[in-house]
């Protein structure tokens, strides 16, 4: 088990690197599968000393449903924002700063939450507090800032908390 840990420190990263290599090659063959797997074994071992506190994913499968949810939200929110940009006069728009207090503490989870907030149009992660306890988010049009804060917390942060544990 210790030997396995040493040569396969992060199985999920190995899998991801192999898949990315196959996608880069763009044509499936045994040759590239073996080479991709070789890279997937090598890179985590080499980079291990530079990334000592890798998070262990509690529920990696939930990442799939999370990704699908984010993709769906991106599509819906894009249409909403397009409507705001095209049809709402600037004088009626209410841009606002919103503070999102964080329950998650893992840096990787916070980075993912920040990325999600930016990618779902209408909100944009601007900064994190000096102690890493809350995020500063800018909203394109926010008549009710509490609503946006609650939505981000229940929709994204709660799920990330489950995934990263």
């Amino acid at each position, binding site marked *: 088990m210790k030997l396995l840990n040493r040569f396969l420190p992060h199985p999920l990263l190995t899998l991801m690197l192999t898949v990315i290599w196959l996608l880069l090659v763009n044509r499936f063959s045994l040759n590239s599968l073996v080479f991709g797997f070789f890279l997937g074994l090598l890179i985590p071992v080499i980079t291990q000393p530079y990334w000592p506190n890798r998070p262990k994913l509690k529920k990696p499968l939930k990442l799939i449903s999370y990704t699908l949810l984010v993709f769906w939200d991106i599509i819906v929110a894009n249409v909403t924002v397009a409507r705001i940009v095209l049809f709402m006069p600037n004088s009626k728009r209410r841009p606002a700063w919103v503070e999102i207090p964080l329950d998650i503490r893992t840096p990787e989870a916070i980075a993912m939450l920040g990325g999600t907030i930016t990618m779902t149009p209408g909100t944009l992660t*601007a900064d994190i507090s000096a102690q890493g306890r809350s995020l500063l988010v800018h909203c394109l049009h926010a008549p009710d800032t509490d609503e946006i804060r609650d939505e981000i917390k229940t929709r994204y942060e709660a799920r990330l908390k489950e995934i990263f544990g």
Partner: protein
Amino acid sequence: MIIDILIAGFVAVGGLFGFVGSFGLLKLNDPMSRMHAPTKATTLGVGGVLIGSMLHAWAYEGHISAHELLITLFLLVTAPVTANFLAKVFINQQTKPDDLPGPSACSLWATHDKPEHHRTSEQPTDT
């Protein structure tokens, strides 16, 4: 024929959202709001064109192309970082700590939390 219409449809949707993104850059009237526009163009704008491209490769070149998925992946990883850097520059140059809603748990946002601030607060009495 149907696949042609589908491909054209996806490319047109991509172009439309690309247009909305650049139009927003012109129309919106403050720097932070303007930054919202490019994130729109990278998500649905590029996404629509990429889906069209994948359909085209599948229907006309007879193979499944996966590079588009990788482009999407890399865009999703890099676009928020760019936006975050631009926002930090704006916060650093054009706002003061009092302009923003303060973080409740502590006193400052990371961009305003500068090293010289610490130095002066830690050593208030200097010769």
